[in-house]
């Protein structure tokens, strides 16, 4: 046997064959990961994507998608979701961007810098139950500011807490976690601004506002817009905060999905949940595509510098 391997073309074929199989067997190494991600990631994705195009009996149909698309309730929730995401993305991006600028302008690596960055990392994750508690303790019944307002200006809206449970309240709560996220995303960009540019501008006689108008803002715009898109996706996907603050099941799309998924009074409708999810994912994918394009511009610029 061993001798036959050394003569004729067969042996050469055999050897390439074994190398061929050795190359292929490397693919076995990704099987465990593929197994786990197939169960916990690809299966749910496929489940939602395919489920959106099925009727209740599992046949292919666009009926549910159309029904959801034309439903006034779903449209209202979707519009609310888009509105709150856009508002809090813009507010969060501006306030967070300014705050990041204030952090960068301090002593680098100083006490304020460290505490501000650490606080931002904590508060950016601070959604849901705890955030709701914090704002109820501030503006809710018997809350800190509500009590002060009750004494100073009993007729102002702050004295009552009804405003907290609607669009205004949610916007303020969402902005609370958007600001720190913006700080985290935008801080590296600000730190990459070269001091030489400012010096060059100053040396050529440029005023501070001219530097910002002609150099700072044009350079920062792509990454600022990218960060704002990220914030948009962040609040568009948020569920926990709204769910713990208000019980209006049709107010935002995520709340509507949860109701369609879990309602125990006969309203449970997985097909509807999947169709709503499908529309949500489309919005997220559009936003993320723009984000990717903007990031490409930013990284081009960062390589060139």
């Amino acid at each position, binding site marked *: 046997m061993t001798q036959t391997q050394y003569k004729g073309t067969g042996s050469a074929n055999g050897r390439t064959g074994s190398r061929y199989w050795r190359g292929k067997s490397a693919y076995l190494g990704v099987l465990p990961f593929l197994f786990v991600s197939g169960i916990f990631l690809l299966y749910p994705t496929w489940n939602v994507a395919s489920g959106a195009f099925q009727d209740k009996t599992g046949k292919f149909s666009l009926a549910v998608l159309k029904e959801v698309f034309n439903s006034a309730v779903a449209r209202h929730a979707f519009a609310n979701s888009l509105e709150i995401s856009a508002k809090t993305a813009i507010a969060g991006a501006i306030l967070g961007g300014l705050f990041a600028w204030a952090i960068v302008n301090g002593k680098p690596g100083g006490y304020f810098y460290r505490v501000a960055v650490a606080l931002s990392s904590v508060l950016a994750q601070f959604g849901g139950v705890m955030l709701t508690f914090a704002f109820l303790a501030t503006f809710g019944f018997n809350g800190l500011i509500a009590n002060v307002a009750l004494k100073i200006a009993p007729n102002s809206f702050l004295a009552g807490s009804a405003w907290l449970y609607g669009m205004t309240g949610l916007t303020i709560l969402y902005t609370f976690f958007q600001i720190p996220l913006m700080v*985290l995303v935008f801080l590296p960009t600000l730190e990459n601004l070269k001091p030489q540019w400012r010096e060059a501008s100053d040396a050529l006689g440029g005023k501070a506002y001219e530097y910002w108008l002609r150099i700072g803002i044009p350079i920062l715009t792509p990454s600022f817009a990218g960060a704002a898109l990220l914030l948009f996706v962040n609040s*568009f996907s948020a569920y926990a905060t709204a769910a*713990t603050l208000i019980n209006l099941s049709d107010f935002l799309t995520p709340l509507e999905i949860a109701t369609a998924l879990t309602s125990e009074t006969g309203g449970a409708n997985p097909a509807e949940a999947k169709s709503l999810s499908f529309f949500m994912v489309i919005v997220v994918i559009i936003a993320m595509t723009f984000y990717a394009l903007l990031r490409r511009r930013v990284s081009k610029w960062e390589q060139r510098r």
Partner: protein
Amino acid sequence: MKKSWGVRIWRWSIISFVGAYLLVPLYAMFDFSTKPFGFQDKGRTFRAWTTIPGQPDLMPAIARSLITAAIVMALILFLIVPTAIWVHLKLPALRRPFELLCLLPLAIPAIVIVVGIAPLYRWISINLTESPLSLAGVYSMLILPYTYRSLSAALDAVDIHTLAEAARTLGANTGRVIFGIIMPTIKTGIVNGSFIAIALVLGEYTISNLLNYKTFQNVIAQIGRTNGNVAVSVSLASILFVLFLLLLIPTKKRRNAVLDVDLV
């Protein structure tokens, strides 16, 4: 660099406005948690804080969440990291598909994942286990993008091909190459990923609530329905705990961990 008065005024007004936005609610939590409740208290009281350890469901929930975090970390260490290294070393053709797979969770909101995964967890709780620890599976997928970003940055920074070849020449087998040679060189990336795992598991609400598992956040919500003061003090305590942890970790190393959400 000396700063002009204009810059200083701007800076401090921004800091005080945003600082007030972020800190007043936190102080309000403290204020609320020390308010008297029941009939026996007058003035300020720390009774809500002292009853934290005695809350019936709380400690088991914290323990479960920490164990879940440990399982997620184990999945990162023994599954995701070795696969990432394997793909980098042996399967360059798969790098792009692997990256896309890892970034997929960014495009799918948690609420949508729940919709897709609910049948699976119904099956798991009927046929395998009702333990909330099984959530580790979906959690490890949720943090894939973050793990991937910090890993691929670390893997690109080191010439792992040369390292692997040198190790093979000296007689190391594949397991030794991955776990003994390459993984120690990308330690920082792995530590970062693990830190995110803890933060994610302790803070996750959407999935566990809709699938009816009693995790940390759900127990806090449950306490909040019966006793606001205690729930608020637990929340504040956990925020301060995480903040304290973060301040212990050196700034430079940590920053890359939390903000690595680039897509490209």
